């Protein structure tokens, strides 16, 4: 088994492991956590934007036609968007299916 060592040398850590690059949390790939992904049926979607509002991460972005599209780098599969969608346009699809 490979030896588990840290990401960076202790000598290179910022004071008190402070993070000095603003917005660096956007690099965190929360999509890795997912067991199911949110998939939108655009025939049902009414472009209300609730998925965008309720998503606890940064998954949804509005496209030119006003629909909200997923960025799976961030989708952790929580299912909140599917739960909140007023027209049941979002389904949670098991990864691997």
């Amino acid at each position, binding site marked *: 088994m490979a030896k588990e060592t840290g990401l960076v*040398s*202790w*000598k290179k850590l910022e*004071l008190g*492991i*402070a993070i000095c690059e603003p917005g660096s949390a956007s690099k965190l790939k929360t999509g890795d956590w997912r067991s199911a992904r949110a998939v939108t049926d655009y025939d049902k979607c009414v472009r209300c934007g609730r998925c965008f509002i309720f998503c606890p991460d940064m998954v949804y972005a509005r496209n030119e036609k006003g629909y909200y599209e997923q960025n799976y780098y961030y989708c952790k599969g929580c299912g909140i968007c599917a739960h909140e969608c007023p027209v049941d346009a979002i389904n949670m699809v098991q990864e691997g299916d």
Partner: protein
Amino acid sequence: MAKRIGMEVSIAAAEAVALANVDVIAAYPITPQTHIVEHLSELVASGHLDAEFIPVESEHSAMSTCVGSSAAGARTFTATSSQGYALMSEICYITASLRMPIVMITANRALSGPINIWNDHADLMMARDTGWVQTVAENGQEVLDLIFHAFRVAEDHRVLLPVMVNLDGFILSHMIEPMILLDQDEVDRYLPPFKPALRLDPKNPITIGPVGMPDVYTEAKKAHDEVLKNSKAVAVEAWKEFGDLFGRYYHPVESYKAEDAEHIIISMGSISETAMTAVDAMREAGKKVGLVRIRLWRPFPGDELIEAVKGAKTLTVLDRVMNLNGVCGPVCGEVKSVLYDSGLRPFVKNYIAGLGGRDVTVENFTEMVEKVIASAANGGSMGYEIINVNE
């Protein structure tokens, strides 16, 4: 010019904190520390000290407020005792880990239970492995000088750690003593304005206190350990400069008649003054006895201690606390640990003394040293004993 004052040590300590140009004080009153922050609040209310005094609802909030204040770049002070320390201890680990150069006085008091407001080193020992720099004062003069030293060391960019100045509750905190208090010009010469290395600033946003996942936690601890160990050299340097400026020299470990001593007492704090009187009495009786006092408790000055005791046949190690571990008191544990590494093998006996305000007398010291000498001669136990316990 510095002036000679006769003052309660707590009040003088508050005056010293004010001279250190502190920006923020967040505190909650607890015996026997109360007079320190009470006097600081008076100094702020009367306009003598231009600082924010933030009264909070608990010690947990006091230290939390101090973390925020220090992170914003303010010179920050608080004080506590005993149960107050216990309540704030969660944040104290974080304060050190976040590298916040806060200075705190702990007026040392026993921990419950049973509930007891009097002096011993239980709070100091609860704090011992939190990653703070810790110094322990012997008398009022040392309290004042250690306060200036504490800010100087804490804010040094080679350190950036919180510093705890320990003084024995009541025995020092409530004693009126003659002391020399530096004036503002002198303090300003010794203590430059606080220049934070990192601080919260909306124009330059940073995150202080992110989660340390398994991929960084070990490295964070290693960095903290290294900086704490290296802080000893900075503490020594800051004491040397203090001595050069004001004539009072301090060291991590002090020796009293220990150079040629065959039998050495090791102690910490105000009890050492009684120990010195006992050393004088035993010297007059022809016994080669000396005292070694630990002033810098964290980081532990192992090399200096070994140097101070290397010629001794017996060591009588005092612990003013009952750490319930079935092995020995915390001071003795450190002493035995560094002795083992050094290869020295004197006879070491540990006495637990002065718990919860119980007096330790000159006669007690004589009795302890004589018992240790006898035990060493006839192969007695090196285990710990409580002195003055009613069987």
